[in-house]
């Protein structure tokens, strides 16, 4: 959207507006970074604690990883922005091929 916004009559105002928007986005980035660090800490803590069973830990930290990666993709890599429909489609297609591969290798490679 911002790309299409025509420069307004007052370029200074336009610049200020953009600056403000960029700074605002940067704040979101910092917040998501804090969340990512937080999720990482939880994952390490859960493993460090050693009290939980393997069956809880493995899926739980996988879930944390997935959430964290979503932050990376959508905020750091701007996939939440407009104009990322095709990248999304292809990234997720790649991801599904990768997932099927992993699933196969943990189930039917050892005979």
């Amino acid at each position: 959207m911002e790309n299409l916004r025509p420069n307004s009559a007052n370029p200074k105002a336009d610049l200020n507006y953009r600056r403000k928007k960029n700074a605002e986005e940067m704040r979101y980035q910092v917040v998501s970074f804090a969340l990512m660090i937080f999720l990482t800490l939880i994952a390490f803590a859960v493993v460090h604690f050693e009290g939980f069973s393997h069956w809880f830990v493995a899926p739980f930290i996988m879930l944390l990883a997935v959430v964290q990666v979503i932050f990376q993709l959508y905020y750091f890599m701007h996939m939440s922005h407009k104009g990322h429909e095709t990248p999304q489609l292809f990234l997720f297609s790649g991801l599904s091929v990768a997932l099927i591969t992993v699933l196969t290798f943990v189930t039917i490679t050892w005979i």
Partner: protein
Amino acid sequence: MASVQEKFTEMTWPSSPEKATLEAKNKFLGFWFFLGGETVLFGSLFATYLALKDKVPDSSHPLAKDLYSMDLTFAATMLLLTSSLTSVYAMYHMKNFNFQRMQAWLLITVLLGAAFLGLEIYEFNHYVHEGHKFTSSAFGSAFYSLVGFHGGHVAFGLLWILSLMVRNAKRGLDLYNAPKFYVASLYWHFIDVVWVFIFTVVYLMGMVG
């Protein structure tokens, strides 16, 4: 469409320089496609690792839970995650047409990445002394291939960002190099994404057994 050689000021700098020209749009999209392919590449390596995890010739070889250390992995993770944020800062300044600050943040990113790589080399060296080698077991081959491929990506990313910084140090930002900086930072984030899965699947799950 703006011309690539045009000189810009803060005022005239477009708000999405990474997509301001057709060349830039192509680069942007092509790079995302490439990342889609990379996802499959790393997926295959992860799959191979999982199939061969702890598959060793005999019991004298160390297994995952004997090897991995939490401190080292944690330090490496923090370094790489932080470097992801610093490259976001660099792109923030790129969008604000502040070349000096962008270069500064990129430099911090590079330093963090180099520190990560240093840790990884130290780690590998340590494992080799424990008897966990690339050539000693299928487990070793799979581990070093997956983590090493990622390490290779980090090294390549460092070289890439550094050469962009050096090449453009004198001429500042324009629409010819802004997309290059942008895709390099995308690449850097992608490396981080892969690492998130590596520390979770390889290290943390390896420690749980």
